[in-house]
């Protein structure tokens, strides 16, 4: 916990430093139309740096020595995070490459997670990875007219 506290507080101070740097560029004083753009961010960031330092002191003096997270407890967290990142990349990868669209990616993601983590029956996996995207599509795309990223499958189906 103590290390995590120190790292987080350090990052907050770094964030404060970056903001102060940009605020100084924008001007932190008084302009023609009142306080300039950097005024508010500057004071926020200055205070954040002070608080970050205080949290560091607090952690050093009284911080608990329990580990932030143990390896076996962190594994399930990663098992959520990594497929989630994969799902986003499948939907629409950053850069010029085309994605599969949200609905297809959601189906693959759901099926993968169900099979990998839950070891569910293949029939249930296939049924849900088709049903969930279709229902989501009907609710958002046709009922509430909220468009989601689409890919080749939707184009092929004429949407």
């Amino acid at each position, binding site marked *: *916990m103590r290390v*995590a*506290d120190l790292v*987080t507080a350090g990052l*907050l101070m770094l964030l404060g430093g*970056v*903001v102060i740097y*940009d*605020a100084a560029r*924008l001007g932190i004083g008084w302009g023609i*139309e*009142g*306080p*300039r*753009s950097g*005024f*508010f*961010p500057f004071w*926020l*960031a200055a*205070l*954040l740096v002070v*608080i970050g330092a205080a*949290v560091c002191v*607090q952690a050093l003096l009284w911080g608990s020595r329990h580990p*932030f*997270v143990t390896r076996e*407890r*962190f594994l*399930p*967290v990663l*098992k*959520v*995070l990594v*497929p*989630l990142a994969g*799902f*986003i990349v499948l*939907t*629409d990868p*950053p850069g010029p490459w085309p994605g599969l669209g*949200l609905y297809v990616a*959601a189906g693959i*993601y*759901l099926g993968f*997670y*169900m099979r990998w*983590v*839950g*070891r*569910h029956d293949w029939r249930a996996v296939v049924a849900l990875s088709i049903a*969930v995207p279709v229902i*989501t599509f009907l609710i*958002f795309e046709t009922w*509430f*007219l*909220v*468009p*989601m*990223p689409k890919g080749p499958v939707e184009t092929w189906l004429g949407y």
Partner: protein
Amino acid sequence: MGIDNLLLGFQVAFTPFNLFIAVIGILLGTIIGVLPGLGGANGVAILLPLTFTMPPTSAIILLTSIYWGALFGGAITSILFNIPGEPWSVATTFDGYPMAKQGQSGQALTAAFTSSFVGAFFSIVLITFFAPLLAEVALKFGPPEFFAIQFLTFSSFVGLGGGNPLKSLASILIGFILSTVGLDIVTGQLRLTFGFTDLMKGFDFIVAVIGLFGIGEILLSVEEGLQFQGAKTGMNMRVVLDTWKILPRYYRTFVRGAFIGFWMGFKPGGATPASFMSYAFAKRFSKHPERFGKGEIEGIVAPETAAHAAGVAAILPMITLGIPGSPTAAVMLGGLIIWGLQPGPMLFVDNPDFVWGLIASMYTGNVIGVIMVLLFVPFFASILRIPFAILTPLIIVICAVGSYAVHNSMIDIWYMLIFGVLGYVFKKLDYPLAPLVLALVLGDLSENALRQSLIMSQGSLAIFFTRPIAGAITAVAIFFFVLPIITPWWRRLKGSPASASQTPLH
């Protein structure tokens, strides 16, 4: 004049479409409240994009109904599964889960729902009378008064939040800093973008809410390896009626809980301390304090009444001052802006049908809500019996859809992921998330109020002290800020370790 307006409101709330919307909202809200990782704030945020095409009054009825539903849903998981869906349901688990284990879950649930209803109803009645008065006062407010109130809002997180005051302050500052990213409307300059076009749009609080509360919560619950092993619901008409016969005995606890809830609730972050305070008071004044924690029905009545009174009271500052009292109210406030309404006292002048429709819908929504949860508890409880490996990706997909829908942009889904990790780390390190979200929502308003005040005073901060109303509010705010410093001194002076109101707030 008040009654006429309320009748006008009921005409709005009682249209078949709006009643239908309320039923849907309660249904969705209760499901959201039951599901891990989806709470009131987050559920409202995800469904906000669906309301863009609705008339504003129906939209707010949908969102508030989701909120009521989520409040009810929290009690179901606390009692049956010993999992508080929301922080303010923690106190409900103390006696709710023991009762459920003893086979009295029907009584426990009935008591919880009834108390929630009573607490909420009490607050709604008070809102009906106080909202117009408060709005009238607020109409005379200038930028210094509004800034002072925002200052007070954040000071109460530091002073009354119960967590680490330094970390509360850090959360507030982070929220404000994130809100300044992007175009500064006053000067037209780009701030903190460092040449990245994606940063020009800034950070949307909806995405922050979904990430921090939704994804963060899921990461926490998989880390803790939660197993949902629930007690049977055991609800039927007989149990409900029998419990209703006992409940009037606790009228003192109801009244006390409702007052504590309302009083704490219209200040931000009030619902959780209110529920604990109410529980502590009920225990102190009970003839059988030793029964608390072992399945005493009064131990459910006290926190539930207070939590719901507080949850409803959070709406009061949102509609009268434009300052949300809770993260969920903050998301609703964001909705108001998106629907083209100006939150704050002018609502009562410009959009009376909206405000009074909202207030009237609080009456109808809570009546519909309590009936629905009493009838359908087994259905809602069965949701938690869906295997975790299906629930987790399902909730994540819903979160991603909600994040994307805000601006139709992929970057928001990535932000959701980043905010999710941030929420996980912050929650573990005891940085409170609610003030961060509130600061992100109120950032622009606060900064503008500050700028205008400073322009009025030509740069002198004295303006926040010399104007009578602003001065009084600022004084209270400063008191709250120093409260964490003076409390230990005060205790040492009095020689008592802790009093009822200072029992653990977490």
